[in-house]
């Protein structure tokens, strides 16, 4: 199966990765984006939009974006071995499913039907 990576191949692949490894230039942009999103989030909190039904979904989307950026760039999951992606996103998926299910069960989310 393709799951096997012989070490030689892996080494070669990583050398390749090294190349793509984000640099200071990217890092600083990433930091800036994170910062801007956070500022927007907090700002929105104080605007009338905070009363809108879209406020919570908006915030959750924003923080999901931040979450994704940090994981992909700073934790270099985007550039790393795909195994790590599986090790992280698999459990994350199950965890998010569990949270959602629990919130439904305790009526913290509107009922499905």
């Amino acid at each position, binding site marked *: *199966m393709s*799951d*096997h990576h012989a070490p030689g*191949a892996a080494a070669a692949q990583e050398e390749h990765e090294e190349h793509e490894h984000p640099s200071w230039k990217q890092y600083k942009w990433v930091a800036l984006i994170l910062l801007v999103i956070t500022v927007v989030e907090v700002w929105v909190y104080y605007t009338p939009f905070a009363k809108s039904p879209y406020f919570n979904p908006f915030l959750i989307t924003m923080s999901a974006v931040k979450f994704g950026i940090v994981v992909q760039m700073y934790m270099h999951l985007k550039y790393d071995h795909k195994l790590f992606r599986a090790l992280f996103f698999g459990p994350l998926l199950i965890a998010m499913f569990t949270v959602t299910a*629990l919130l439904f069960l305790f009526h913290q989310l509107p009922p499905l039907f």
Partner: protein
Amino acid sequence: MATTAAAPKFQPVNTDGSYGESGFWSWMTTVDHKRIGTLYLYTALFFFIVGGIEAGIMRWQLALPNSHVVSAQMYNQLFTMHGTTMVFLAIMPLSAAFFNYLIPLQIGARDVAFPRLNAFSYWVYLLGGLFISIPILFKTAPDAGWFGYAPLTTPQFSGGLNIDFWVIGLQILGISSLAAAFNFITTIINLRAPGMTLMRMPMFTWMSFVVQFLLILAFPAITIALVFLLFDRFFGTQFYEIASGADPLLWQHLFWVFGHPEVYILILPAFGLVSEILPTFSKKPLFGYNVMVYSGIMIGVLGFGVWAHHMFAVGMGAVADSIFSLVTMLIGIPTGVKIFNWIATMWAGEIRFTAAMKFAIGLIALFTIGGISGVMHSSPPADTQQTDTYFVVAHFHYVLFGGSIMGILGGIYYYFPKMTGRYMSEKLGTWHFWLTFIAMNLTFFPMHFSGLLGMPRRVYTYDAGQGWEKFNLASSLGTALLIFATSLFVINFLWSRKNGAKAPNDAWGAATLEWSIPSPPPDYNFAQIPIVTSRSPLWDLKHPEMTAGIAHSSPDAMTITDSHAVPMHEETEYKTAKELGIPMPFPTIKPFFAALGIIVMFSGLIFIHLDKFAIAMAITIGGAVLLVGSLYAWLTSPLE
């Protein structure tokens, strides 16, 4: 005994697996996965007997209506500890014994990824197990059932120390399971021999791999649930305090988010063992290997979506009941695939009925019954008549005893020659099997009836004339027979260690790597790491006619960087690690002290409850210092 391999020239220095380096201290400091596996095996068997004795007393009490062998309070402690012991101290560690012993051997590794962490896991398990078990001797054992529903466990309703031992004990045991799981995940991902692709791994390793993921994902949920309870009991938080408006279902959900994956943690290793035994004794490869892998993964994943089927009586509402019911039923499909693939594995084979094989077949027969009653539970309206009755008790003993225990017993018969270099007595084993098979059904089958005829579970006594007498008497007689049968096993096990017939490398004519090295294996396992070219390397080597039709592919020679790797062969010579120039991890006591530190640290909490705050602080800080100190010493000293 049918063997296909010639006896090896190799003779170990001594046969207890310790290679000259024996004695108490060598066991305390060992980091060898095989010895740790052995420790797990003995400890878990001990706890299995403890749990069995607890069950025996319970059945003695329930043999007749209105009888009074033990008090109500004692009975409640007994069933709580019976469940807790069997689940956390017997079956899980029995599985861990096999993880430890077998995974490195099956994937062609010299040890696990973190040998010292492995020792640490064992010591935490042992000490935590004693911590939670000993109170029963002083009549202060946990008494809220193995799933300890809040608010019964809150200080308001359980003021004594009983629940303290439970919440702390389980917390400690969780540490052990988690540490071990990280270790095995890394081991399986990283330490496979060249050519041992994931889809060439033996089925036991595969199922263990799935189990490790269940462990790392299920245990956090109970850890948090227990943290809340611990805080409630010691620091005055309100998580389960009904007066503050707490919702008792919070505990139930968190517990079962853990609890249901937990039952698959208990069964999948047994499934793995059976998947090793059946092919060997049918002289056929496992039928539908890929599908067996996927169904195992499916069971694991779906297992996270069914937890609330334990809560069909709590009033979750029709929608939630329906969804959980449907997902629960779905699990029957991949499990059924396993059952049929096992039967297909035997189909057209040459079946040898060794003791191990009998237990494996027993698992198929008995687990099916438990699985079917599980599907009966999965229908919520029907389950409202079944939940919390003996029908449930029947269900889970069929899957736990008929499944996990049968599989593990089969595994012990099967791997005993590898571990000790000697066979267990087949004659006693046959007796053991048939008595267990009969007694098991005699004990647990009548529970289906007593349950459907209205008998609630967890009752220390019941009134006469309710229509339950004969079923209970049958169950109790069955238990007596079960104890007798288990004694035969214990005798066989102990006797055969020294007196069993000698076993060669390949005791049964199996296909996988662990059988290519001496029995018991040398401490470094493989003098030379084999290069694997198929799923059944040893059959390739010894019975090429069996595997002729399969495509083989060696890993690219370029990619084999391990200087010890050589093409697959059977090892017949014994040399020390030194002679071979294989670096071995140093034995060390540090993991033991780190584990001890954890236990001491947690024990301090008990004194908070006794209102001895200063003592509590002193003990906790002492434990923490011991823990941190040992950890620091451990992390800064070289491994090998």
